[in-house]
């Protein structure tokens, strides 16, 4: 049944459209509105469903370039996941630890992880960059980035 990749995608999209439509039909009503808030979402849900059906029956084969885009080595997948984890840790700790420390750590750590071996310039860039941005935002532009544990 699901030979082509597009057919698999079509099923995923159809499910998405179904969920969205379900939510649209459950939107609260506002009795005084002439055109209520659920009209456009309902239309969009149906539209997505329609396109999913079209995609399912689309005869067009995947080109080689397209196929190549979605093949990745296991190593690369792991590296992407690691970078993702770095970002999530950064966000999680940003307001607790503060902008300066987290940003410097992130730039240094992430660059190191991705294979940047000039430790001195890495350290200089990460620290100077964080300081300059922090100084610009907090003191010149008066837009306060989180100070965290350093009371600056």
């Amino acid at each position, binding site marked *: 049944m699901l030979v082509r990749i597009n057919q698999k995608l079509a099923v995923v999209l159809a499910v998405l459209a179904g969920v969205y439509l379900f939510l649209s039909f459950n939107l609260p009503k506002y009795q*005084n509105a002439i055109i209520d808030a659920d009209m456009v979402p309902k239309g969009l849900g149906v539209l997505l469903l329609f396109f999913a059906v079209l995609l399912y029956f689309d005869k067009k084969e995947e080109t080689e370039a397209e196929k190549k885009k979605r093949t990745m080595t296991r190593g690369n997948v792991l590296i992407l996941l690691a970078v993702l984890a770095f970002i999530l840790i950064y966000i999680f700790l940003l307001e607790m630890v503060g902008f300066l420390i987290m940003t410097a750590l992130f730039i240094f750590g992430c660059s190191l992880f991705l294979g940047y071996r000039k430790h001195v310039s890495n350290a200089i860039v990460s620290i100077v960059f964080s300081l300059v941005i922090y100084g610009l935002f907090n003191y010149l532009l008066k837009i306060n980035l989180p100070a965290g544990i350093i009371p600056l």
Partner: protein
Amino acid sequence: MKKFLATAAAFTMLLAAGCSNQSSGETGKSGENGDWKPTQPIEITAPAGPGGGWDTTARMVSQVFEQEKMIEKRLPVVNKAGGGGAIGWAYIAGKKESEHHMFVASPPLVLVPLNGQSEYGYEDFTPLANVIADYGAFVVKADAKWNNLNDLFEDMKKDPTSVSVIGTSSPGSMDHMQFVKIAKAAGVDVTKIKYISDPDAGGLTAVLNGSVDVYTTGVAETIEQVKAGKIKVLGITSEERLEGEVLSDFQTAKEQGIDETFVNWRGFFGPPGMDPAAVKYYEEKFKELSDSPAWDEIRKKYGWGELYMDSKEYSEFLKKEAEDMEALLKELGLAR
């Protein structure tokens, strides 16, 4: 890379020179009256992004307090945008009993929770003082057939759907409610009012090109267009006539026999359970601010009206305001 950094550094220095002396005194000297004094910087939260009304008020208050040395600590402004204010309120609610936090608020603090969009409302916070007020104005095109509110409301009583009304904010929020409140007092069936919201501030355009009949907005925004003869103001929502060129010509709803007002108040609140001694301190400081020439100048610049209320008056005012609004929102089917 080095060159890039050097350029950036050069930028920074030039920018610093261009921006000149923005940061003001940070002396550690303590104040001379009251039982409580701040011991660390006081953080003022603007529950919206930079540039809007809340942000401007917060920054101006912070500036006057610092520059006039009324409060001898820094008062950094922090933006907590999102949820029409709800994110900022939740943030302050989490600072329970802190004496060094406050935020700026206006009618949305009453309306948003009633719309069911925030779990915190005005009663969760400690009112410190109200400082400024603005009033609503109802505007039509200069050649419209209505000349005052009664003309308009007569037509709306016959057929509410024949008149369209536009405002910036969504139904159940300020622009809508100020119109509904006055229309209701005039006897219009408010559930049938055709209200259109245009968050991109297209209301004035829509009235000028005749797409929509009535624009509900703040008084200050109407002055220039009235002077140019493009629009007319049917009525405003203040208790008495306002002072100033053009402004004094605007009839209030009250003098047209519609016994109702609407105040767009703006003031400051502390976190839940703030120490009464600290409340007293801030009350006095805000009074001092409100009476100062520096603040008067800023009020004039922005076209804000003066309305000082101390903590107690403020609480009572808010309670009445919330009751009125809840009744109206229930009637409209918007209370959630």
